[in-house]
């Protein structure tokens, strides 16, 4: 048993080394890697879906997706939701989150290497304690930037099956349906999301038209929803370039003069 314990992490590491995509995806032969909403966590590979049509068009400056040639490319049915809402009578699809999380085989490795039920023992309770692993995701587990220290990892992650999330009754929730988990606390936002007010949808606007729904983790980082002082809920992105200055203008210094005089008055 000991030999296996040693072997498993090694196998996981070797998988990591053999993963096809580099961690920070640069352009490769197939086409550019672009991101949809969250940089590095909603990556799409540009490719031709029909002659002359690519699945996405990307911003040359920031690498953000600008245009979907097919808004439903790579999606799966959203699945049953326990409530009556618009999508109950519309074709609703989502982009599975698992491939994103597993893009460096992390998810696979998690369950095989460490959280296989033996290597890392189940904690006795859900109380916060410092982590030795996963500091890349949660730098300081005692200061989790979500829930103001009122929640911790195992309030969301399944203690035994690490490839799953968990609902209030301890049932497994797929990473592809984080809304079921998030809705536990954020009921109002969840309702608003179901109505199409919160969050994002693409595809057909019309009643009955097929829609791709964005799920919570496509926009928000659940391990840092606060995003520091800004408290905006969104990680910072590179903005697209400013418009070209109008003819006759050399700079925009006048726009920056807010701290100084306004008009012809002195003070």
């Amino acid at each position: 048993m000991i030999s296996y314990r040693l072997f498993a992490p090694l196998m996981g590491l070797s998988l990591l080394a053999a993963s096809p995509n580099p961690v920070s995806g640069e352009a490769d032969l197939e086409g550019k890697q672009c991101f949809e909403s969250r940089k590095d966590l909603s990556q799409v590979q540009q490719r031709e879906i029909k002659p002359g049509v690519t699945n996405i068009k990307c911003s040359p400056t920031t690498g953000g997706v600008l245009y979907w040639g097919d808004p439903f490319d790579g999606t799966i049915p959203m699945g049953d939701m326990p409530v009556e809402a618009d999508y109950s009578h519309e074709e609703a699809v989502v982009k599975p989150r698992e491939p994103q999380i597993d893009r460096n085989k992390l998810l696979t490795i998690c369950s095989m290497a460490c959280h296989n039920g033996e290597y890392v023992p189940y904690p006795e309770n859900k109380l916060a304690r410092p982590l030795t692993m996963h500091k890349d995701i949660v730098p300081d587990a005692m200061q989790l930037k979500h829930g103001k220290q009122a929640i911790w990892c195992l309030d969301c992650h399944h203690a035994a099956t690490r490839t799953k999330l968990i609902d209030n009754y301890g049932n497994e929730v797929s990473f592809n349906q984080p809304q079921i988990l998030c809705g536990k606390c954020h009921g109002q936002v969840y309702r608003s999301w179901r109505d199409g007010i919160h969050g994002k949808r693409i595809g057909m606007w019309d009643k009955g038209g097929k829609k791709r729904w964005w799920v919570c983790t496509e926009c928000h980082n659940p391990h840092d929803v606060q995003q520091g002082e800004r408290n905006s809920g969104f990680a910072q992105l590179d903005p697209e370039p400013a418009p070209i200055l109008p003819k006759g203008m050399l700079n925009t210094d006048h726009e920056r003069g807010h701290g100084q005089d306004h008009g012809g008055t002195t003070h």
Partner: protein
Amino acid sequence: MKRFFQFVFDFLRASFSGGIFFWGWMLFLSFFIMLWVYGEYVQIANGMIVTGLNDQVSWGFYLANFVFMVGVAAAAVTVVFPAYVYKHKELHKIVVLGEMLAIAAVVMCLLFVTAHMGRPDRLWHIFPVIGIFNWPHAMLTWDVLVLTGYLALNIIGGFYYLYKKYTGKPVNKLFYLSIVYIAIVWALSIHTVTAFLINTMPARPMWFHSMMPIKFITTAFAAGPSLIIIVFLLVRKFTPMKIADEAFHLLSQIVVWCLGIALFLTLSEIVTELYPSTEHSLGLQYLMFGHHGLDALVPFFWTAMALMISSFILLLIPRVRKNLLLLPFICLAVFVGIYIEKGMALMIPGVIPTPIGEFAEYFPTHIEFMIVGGVWAIGFFVLTVLIKGAVGVMLGDVRYKEQASHRVQGEQANAVAT
């Protein structure tokens, strides 16, 4: 009909005969007209990208000149009005010259509007029947109506009078006077409607006030007669035509009162805008003081103010006003002052900042200067031609010489019938 062609021929012959000064002047103007041809060619070939205009400042030098020239055109009424309504004898004689000035000014207006249009090749879209004339909704269609109507009234009125004078026949007073009275009211309408063109847009707060029409009219009635005074003094100097001093005294009085009212309205506007200093006054503030270092218009505004105020004060002094040697220079100052104040200093800060608050300065390009200069040259060219011909007719130098009496009699009968 032959007599009419004879009239046109004789009129033009009178227009285009002159000494070295005349031909030098015409050559001088032709040079600028050639520049206009080139400028228009470049602009039509490349689009308006050759101008300094942009989405932030999409109305500029052309429309500034347009607005000003509409005023000059309307000001012809300052000659006509006292002549006919108050039976002012001295002005009565030279009323036709005012009408000629109006014709030249309206021609300039039309050329400025054409230069402003992005697609002059589609001008026919606005013609009723073959295009869509969005009347009465679009203020621009009203402006088209009043301007073309005013041009027609002045051509008909002016040339009817000259033609009668040319043939030596009495003027049909009922016909002529109705034209004149309609033209008087119409002249007010062209400037009123031009004011409505820009002051009916709440998106542009600097223009959005009901004082615009009256301010337009008063500035027009100051700048217009100033130009008329200069032109008439030149006419008196270079042609044998006699224009009495009295006419100049009346015109300069019109200038001083209208200028005074215009200054008063400007003052009211400044106080109304700057006292509360809301966001809506940013345009005026930019004009007067600049905005965070953007101050292209500031010297122009203060120059205009200095010219207008100082000439107003000078004109208030009767001795100065009646000094016909000094008067043309003061008139020039008034003209230039109002040209700035009502042209660029009205048009540009109206669109700066944009309705969503962006400041972008505007500098006309050499193409715009070529076109504007060229249109002015065309205006002066037309004016010279018209005034020389008209003066010839008025003096009796140009008149119909009877050749075959029986044919003339037949045509006389025709003329009486009309």
